[in-house]
């Protein structure tokens, strides 16, 4: 086991951001364990122990359903994200699982060119190494600094 080095965690995050921002979200669920937790919530709710997210998925299959809905069901004006992901900070490692906190900034680029900061926050992750040697998220909570969501949130953070 190569361990949860800064380099490996940084690469994991770089690949994750690249997947979403390059519009390859079909590959997004593969960053997660089959049993996982992905939630988009606010810092206020999280601090208060309020668990309801605007997105809440407890399986990789639910993430696949998010992607399918994004592609085939939901209606929204064309837009893209640009993730800027900061340095992962390892909070601790226990039982082969790293607790990691990583800041993010997501810029949203609309069809008409309007470009604005859509979300900032931190990922609260539990990262594990699979049998294939790949790091994956057992948990990724996208905790947004702001309580506000402009218009809608279609593409995952």
């Amino acid at each position, binding site marked *: 086991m190569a361990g949860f080095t800064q380099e490996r965690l940084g690469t994991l995050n770089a690949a994750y951001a690249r997947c979403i921002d390059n519009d390859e979200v079909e590959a997004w669920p593969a960053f997660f364990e089959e049993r996982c937790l992905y939630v*988009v*919530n*606010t810092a*206020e*709710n999280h601090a208060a122990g*309020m*668990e*309801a*997210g*605007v*997105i*809440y*998925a*407890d*399986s990789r*299959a*639910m993430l*696949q*359903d*998010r992607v*399918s*809905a994004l592609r*085939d*069901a*939901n*209606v*929204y*004006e064309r837009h893209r994200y640009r993730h800027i992901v900061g340095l992962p900070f390892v909070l601790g490692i226990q039982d082969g699982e790293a607790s990691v906190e990583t800041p993010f900034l997501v810029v949203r680029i609309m069809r008409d060119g309007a470009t604005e900061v859509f979300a900032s926050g931190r990922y609260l992750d539990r990262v594990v190494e699979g049998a294939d040697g790949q790091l994956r998220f057992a948990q990724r909570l996208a905790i947004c600094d702001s*309580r*506000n*969501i*402009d*218009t*809608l*949130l*279609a593409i995952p953070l």
Partner: protein
Amino acid sequence: MSSSDTQEPRTWEPGLTRVPYWLYRDQAIHDAEQRRVFQGPTWNYLCLEAEIAEPGAYRTTFVGDMPVIVARDEDGELQAFENRCAHRGALIALDDGGKTRDFACVYHAWRYDLQGNLRGVAFQQGVNGKGGMPADFRMEDHHPRKLRTASVAGMVFGSLDEDVPPIEEYLGDEILERIERVLCKPVEVIGRFKQTIPNNWKLYMENVKDSYHASLLHVFFTTFNINRLSQKGGVIVSETGAHHVSYSKVSHQPQPNAEYSAEKLRSDKEGYALADPSMLDGCDEFGDGVTLQILSVFPGFVLAQIQNTLAVRQILPDGLDRTVLNWTYLGFQDDTPELRRMRLKQSNLTGPAGFVSMEDGAVGGFVQRGIAASRDREAVLEMGGGGIETQENRTTEASVRGFWNAYRGYMEI
């Protein structure tokens, strides 16, 4: 250029089947709405009783543009008053909520009790015998505007109008029953979100009341072949049209071979199904088979039950072409861990990222932008006729017309 070239058109023929677009982009209308609708003889949602359960607990909220403090006083009574210091107009409370014995304006430390009465003026007698307020200054003559408050099924409403009817009368029995159907026991807040949408507030309220658009704009259920064959539902419109309930009884079970392609919606993919349908394993917790109930109270409140997700929405205008939605997601205090988990999973259906609601965040903006050059043109609202009566089907715009009937009444327009 004649004077008629510079006059903005502001005409609206009697009736409810046409809505002129200038209504959504007019500063004079916005200002009149504040006075006649939000501060008029209406009831506005303020917060939940559960959020101010203890004496001294308060929340800051809004009635239209007006910042408001709602508090529970020492006697356990609900109090609400404008969040504006009677001295220079600064906000009295700066936090979203908390617990306090009194409120002190940060600007000059004028102090208010939990009823909004002025209780202290800093240096009222001056310093060293100099300065201070005139001898005839009476604190009783100065206080922020106070609201009447009323509680319905644990929700706190407020009104600026002295002559507003009692809330039970304002809502009517049918609406009241449908509120009590959902909020039937003590609730717990499980999340709060704010969503800012790029359109006039009335476009959002119309969208909420528009049962016609539901299966056309929101195609999540049909795309994934989650059946709606047993769909029964209808629309209840209150007497003046101000409030509404849209409901349906749908068995949302995956039906891979459902005959749904006949509607030729954007959906109809053969064999398309959810990879993880566990989100739909909800239970009939109210025991009546109603899986969707959207309820609105004029002017800006929504209570929604979508399967096991429960949420209230406060709708606030933010200028002419922006609207703030304050979402509060709820569970019951006696939720089993399994039911709570189901609510969390089903929260995917609703809200700013909801599978069956995210479009509502954007569609109002599509109208707002579409009508940019059409002040003098009109929207058409003829689906289901021209009336505002309760109907046992949802392909109707009756409750949208109801909104306009109530609006015209309050606005005298």
